[in-house]
């Protein structure tokens, strides 16, 4: 990206600059962090390990992702009842997706071309074809869907619900709920392993992660957390990420201010990494080099060096950072 065009873009977009505009090299490893409180996205240069720019987006930005073609950023602007599309090159909002009301988060499916959005108040999952920006399905869930994920083969949509404390398996072809699995209290995030062999569901108030067999629809293992010196009620699992080879899982533990590293073979916690305050969401950088965590109460992102299993940096972002997405291009 040329320096001049970058500046021009900033002015046109009316962006708030966190610091003097520093050009982001075209190849830079970049993280995009939605700041729920500020209505902004922080753009973090992961080579320089700092926030280089902050852009204004819609109200209450939460779920965030980079599209499959790497050209756009998608962000749920919950209080504006829309998902905004932001051009990565110009950092301008170029359009919206018809998300339905109060989108909190979404999952990408079908090679990144389908967006599955939970609409809590309407008890719906809205499915959007991203290239054509159209709604292709509205699936009634019967309960308020919160966590949202799609199986790697695209055949199964899973939503979690706080009302039922269950993971609801929806067959995408027939749009029907085919199974429900009871987990511990306040399920938040559901995440399939990359090979689709297991679905992990975090229970924020139950303090556990349920490992579910997605074929038999049963909880086959439950992962508990214990941290010396911390009461169990502050251990509140939310975000879950698997390494590419599925050998390790990382679970963000909310107000415990730690990320648990789990051996997925045995289900044992190998390590707790101390990060910022109230850690919720996470994203890997390519090749699983770093894992980034959003820390809502300390307004920063922790950078975990995955090979070394160490927190190497914390990067200041906006207020109440919620979600994070990464692009290498």
């Amino acid at each position: 990206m040329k320096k001049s065009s970058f500046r021009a873009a900033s002015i046109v977009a009316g962006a708030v600059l966190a610091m003097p505009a520093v050009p982001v090299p075209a190849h830079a490893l970049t993280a995009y962090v939605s700041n729920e409180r500020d209505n902004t996205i922080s753009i973090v240069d992961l080579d320089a390990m700092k926030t280089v720019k902050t852009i204004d987006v819609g109200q209450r930005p939460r779920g965030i992702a980079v599209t499959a073609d790497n050209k756009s950023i998608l962000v749920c602007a919950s209080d504006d009842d829309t998902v905004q599309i932001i051009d990565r090159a110009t950092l301008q909002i170029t359009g919206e997706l018809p998300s339905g009301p109060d989108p909190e988060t979404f999952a990408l499916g079908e090679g990144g071309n389908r967006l599955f959005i939970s609409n809590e108040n309407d008890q719906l999952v809205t499915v959007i074809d991203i290239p054509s920006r159209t709604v292709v399905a509205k699936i009634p869930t019967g309960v308020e869907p919160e966590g949202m994920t799609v199986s790697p083969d695209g055949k199964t949509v899973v939503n979690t619900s706080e009302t039922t404390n269950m993971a609801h398996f929806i067959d995408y072809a027939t749009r029907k709920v085919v199974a429900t699995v009871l987990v511990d209290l306040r399920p938040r995030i559901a995440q399939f392993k990359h090979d689709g062999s297991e679905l992990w569901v975090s229970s924020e108030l139950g303090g556990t992660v349920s490992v579910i067999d997605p074929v038999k629809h049963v909880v086959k293992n439950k992962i508990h957390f214990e941290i010396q010196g911390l009461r169990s009620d502050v251990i509140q699992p939310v975000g879950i990420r698997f390494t590419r080879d599925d050998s390790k899982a990382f679970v963000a533990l909310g107000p415990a201010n730690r990320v648990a590293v789990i051996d997925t073979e045995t289900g044992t916690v190998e390590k707790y990494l101390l990060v910022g305050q109230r850690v919720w969401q996470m994203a890997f950088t390519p090749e699983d080099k770093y894992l980034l965590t959003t820390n809502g109460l300390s307004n920063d992102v922790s950078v975990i060096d995955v090979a070394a299993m160490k927190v190497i940096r914390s990067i200041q972002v906006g207020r109440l950072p919620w979600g994070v997405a990464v692009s290498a291009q």
Partner: protein
Amino acid sequence: MGRPNRSMRNGISRRGVIAVLLTLAASRGHADVSTIRIGYVRSTARRPMISLLEQPAPDAGLAGAKLGIDDNNTTGSTFGQAFELIDVPVRKGADLPAALERLAGQGVRVVMTDLAANSVLTLASAARTRDMTIINLAAPDDSLREQDCRANLIHVAPARSMLADAVAQYLVWKKWTRWFLVVGSYPSDKLLADAYRRSAKRFGAKIVQEKVSEDTGGSRQSDSGVVQTQQQIPVLTQGAPEYDVLIAADENEVFAGYLPYRTWDPRPVAGSAGLEPVTWDSSSESWGGTQLQNRFVRLFNRRMMPLDMQAWTGVRMVGEAAARSGSTDPDKLVSTIKSPDFGIAAYKGQLLTLRDWDLQLRQPILLAGGRTVVSISPQPGFLHQTTTLDTIGIDRPETKCKLQ
């Protein structure tokens, strides 16, 4: 409230339909549906409140219980469990043992009630011989958790000591430690004042002055009443030594609502007016609370009040016990609720669990400021070896309760 109203069509019926769909979808050998009936012995007495905004609805509490049943059924449908509420509205002086007997005849073993302490005890005693369990939704009396505690009496309602401690922790955190305590003239007001005195001692605040506000009768707001109130409240609160905050102990809604902005000295008000300790506030939206609020408004066309939350919580405890134990046997449900690893999620950011020494539900207390939730106690810095929730109320080492 634009958003909730838009979806009025999404009422119980739709959820019911979906529940059936879920049942069909997950029909894995649940041919039989087993029904759990929960009784609700409910007071129909309604006392006028000072603020028109706080007038209790005819279905106060009942609406919360209904929503709880609805939520229970959504989960229960996949296990072949159904929940029913049996509403027993009672007037003052009703024959409570007879009401309980009728419920027993309908197969009810768990009965919620929002009656006052003496009636709760009557019910608990009558329930014992019938092997029934009473859930106290509203009576805040510490005596019910202390000398009068019962092994078949579970308290969802926070005790006065919990409410007072919740306020006290916040005031101490603010360093507003000089209190002017104004107490109503009813016995319950005196008990509440006792709770504030205990809290002051416990957390290092000082009550610099106490005053009693006699109930001299008369109606709530009247057309020219506001003129008189403007004269009376300054006089009531005049002449106090230096203080930081006025605490009102007025459970009967006689004077506290008139205090804010009318005190002799310009001081904030807490307790029964101003900053109030509650189990719920219709402005609470944290921890997924927005969805609960919207669901409630959609179904009942009014805001969710604290008693609704207490009734919802009582019903949900039974539902949660059924889901976790996989049973509809009332004995199993009650023993599950009393087991150490039982907890309930109630939009308060942490699990609510039962104190095993007096069967009081541990819970954070919201401090409502009228338009928003100002804070939530326990406050940071008040530590406890087991759970910070036990920094509010009567803790294990202090209890006088002997459950039997």
